[in-house]
């Protein structure tokens, strides 16, 4: 059972990776930029879904980590002479890990609506700090970022080149996504699912469920910071948008559109979101209205998201009952 699942994922993984590598060959620069953005948001949406889909924790504050990652990257590159590009990413991850741990330890006793409201409140606090602390964050003006070139010893990669930055993102962010997938198979990944299923029983099996939530919250915060760091490098700019509640809602939308019940869902959601947004904004400035309508329709009629829809079509085609697809439905909310 497990082996087959790994093989399946392996085939899909290789397929997606190959597709990723040939994107710049077949598509114009403009599309390559969009795919780069979608990859970055995939990581953000996955980190969000580890909270929502896997742990059942609804957060409205995920942008505080995304934004902190973006700001720390911009500030580090602006203040540290000769800081390598991966050094900046690393500092952003360290900073958001610490942030996640501190905020998480204040939240860890809360679940459900209290948790959701507290994350919202903390995000508002972070937003205010980013707006008001002008000397550090640039306030409403934001901060510009210069992407340093990547020195590999034998050669130096020019990061201002669209294709080079695309491959850099594909590999580094791709590795992070791969680790997230691996995480869902680890002891901690299983623990998160089991606690969502039955927290009381887990306590009686020797698990400290508050500590578990804290670890997960810190981990997803660090991942969001990772994505935020790449967001700053991608736009070569960080503004208060990165740390606004809207940014957290974007992650929620992506996870939901793609489906919170599968690992691949948020990736799908991120791509649909980014491309749809690009497509719609060609026609109208009112594109968030249409996105909102799509979201409402998805919640009402396709609560499993696109990946859930595909799974149920696949199951119907192969004539299997949903109940037997245990390994595929593990990540589901219900």
């Amino acid at each position, binding site marked *: 059972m497990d082996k087959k699942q790994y093989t399946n994922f392996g085939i899909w993984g290789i397929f997606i990776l190959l597709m990723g590598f040939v994107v710049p060959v077949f598509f114009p620069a403009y599309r390559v930029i969009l795919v780069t953005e979608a990859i970055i948001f995939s990581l953000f949406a996955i980190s969000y879904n580890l909270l929502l889909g896997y742990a059942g924790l609804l957060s409205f504050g995920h942008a505080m980590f995304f934004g902190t990652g973006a700001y720390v990257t911009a500030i580090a590159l602006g203040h540290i002479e000769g800081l390598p590009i991966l050094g900046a990413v690393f500092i952003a991850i360290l900073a958001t890990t610490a942030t996640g741990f501190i905020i998480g330890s204040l939240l860890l006793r809360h679940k459900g609506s209290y948790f959701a409201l507290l994350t919202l409140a903390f995000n508002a606090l972070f937003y205010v700090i980013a707006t008001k602390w002008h000397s550090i964050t640039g306030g409403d003006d934001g901060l510009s970022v210069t992407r340093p070139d990547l020195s590999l010893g034998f050669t130096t990669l020019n990061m201002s080149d669209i294709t080079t930055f695309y491959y850099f993102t594909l590999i580094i962010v791709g590795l992070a996504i791969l680790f997230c997938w691996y995480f869902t198979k680890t*002891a*901690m990944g*299983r623990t998160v699912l089991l606690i969502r299923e039955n927290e*009381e029983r887990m306590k*009686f*099996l*020797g698990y400290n*469920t508050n500590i*578990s939530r804290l670890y997960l919250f810190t981990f997803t915060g660090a991942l969001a910071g990772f994505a935020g760091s790449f967001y700053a490098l991608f736009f070569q700019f960080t503004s208060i948008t990165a740390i606004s509640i809207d940014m957290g809602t974007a992650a929620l939308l992506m996870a939901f559109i793609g489906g919170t019940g599968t690992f691949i869902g948020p990736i799908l959601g991120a791509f649909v979101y980014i491309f749809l947004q690009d497509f719609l904004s060609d026609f109208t400035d009112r594109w968030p209205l249409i996105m909102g309508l799509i979201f409402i329709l998805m919640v009402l009629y396709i609560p499993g998201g696109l990946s859930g829809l595909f799974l149920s079509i696949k199951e119907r085609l192969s004539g299997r009952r949903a109940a037997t697809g*245990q390994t595929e439905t593990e990540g589901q909310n219900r």
Partner: protein
Amino acid sequence: MKQAKNILEVRNIHKDFSGLQVLTGVDFTVAENEKHAVIGPNGAGKTTLFNIITGNYKPSSGKIIFKETDVTGKPPHILTRMNMSRSFQITNVFPEMSVFENVRAGVRSRQGLRYNFLKRPERVAGINQKTEDILEQVGLTDVMSEPVSALSYGRQRALEIGITLSTEPELILLDEPTAGMTREETAEAIRMINEVTTGRTLIIIEHDMDVVFSLADTISVLHYGTILASDKPDEIRNDQKVKDAYLGEE
């Protein structure tokens, strides 16, 4: 006669829920390897007592001594790590997970593999084997890949015991393990409980007197929040107070 060491001492436990007195001074001791039954009418406070012993509730007053350590008010996960384990009256499992994963959760917890971000449980030596052993003991080997929700009630009850065993406890507390079972299922459950609790201490809450008298070597009668008597089965059977209060109905 040699006196076995006490594994558990319940000392003068009181519990009230916002004014409602549920336990009014419960005292009893359980010796190592004893099979101890707690009986009493509905509402006597048996499950409340279990919840206090296992750390789910804090007592209003009194002490719980487990393995000569005062564990009053300690949370369940700490008591579990000290080798205490319990089952639930209402099946309390992980319904969407496979039977195997249900039991493995406890097995890996015992081995300290709880929050590891790098190790996969199936790759750690002994965990799968230990899980399979427990599934074999409770007779669920044939359904180990099935999701729990697909199991019959009787088999979910067996899993309930399997999960309880998964943390390798020294002290096992079973809360009405045969509740809702058919006569055949009950007989099978007694045989299984007898087998898996060999060499361990058992405290069992039961309504079925056949189960109680076939399993227990000591019986405590809980009546309106206090222990009426705590003695060997034959003594309990002939105890006038117990007859009047409880057994007399038979």
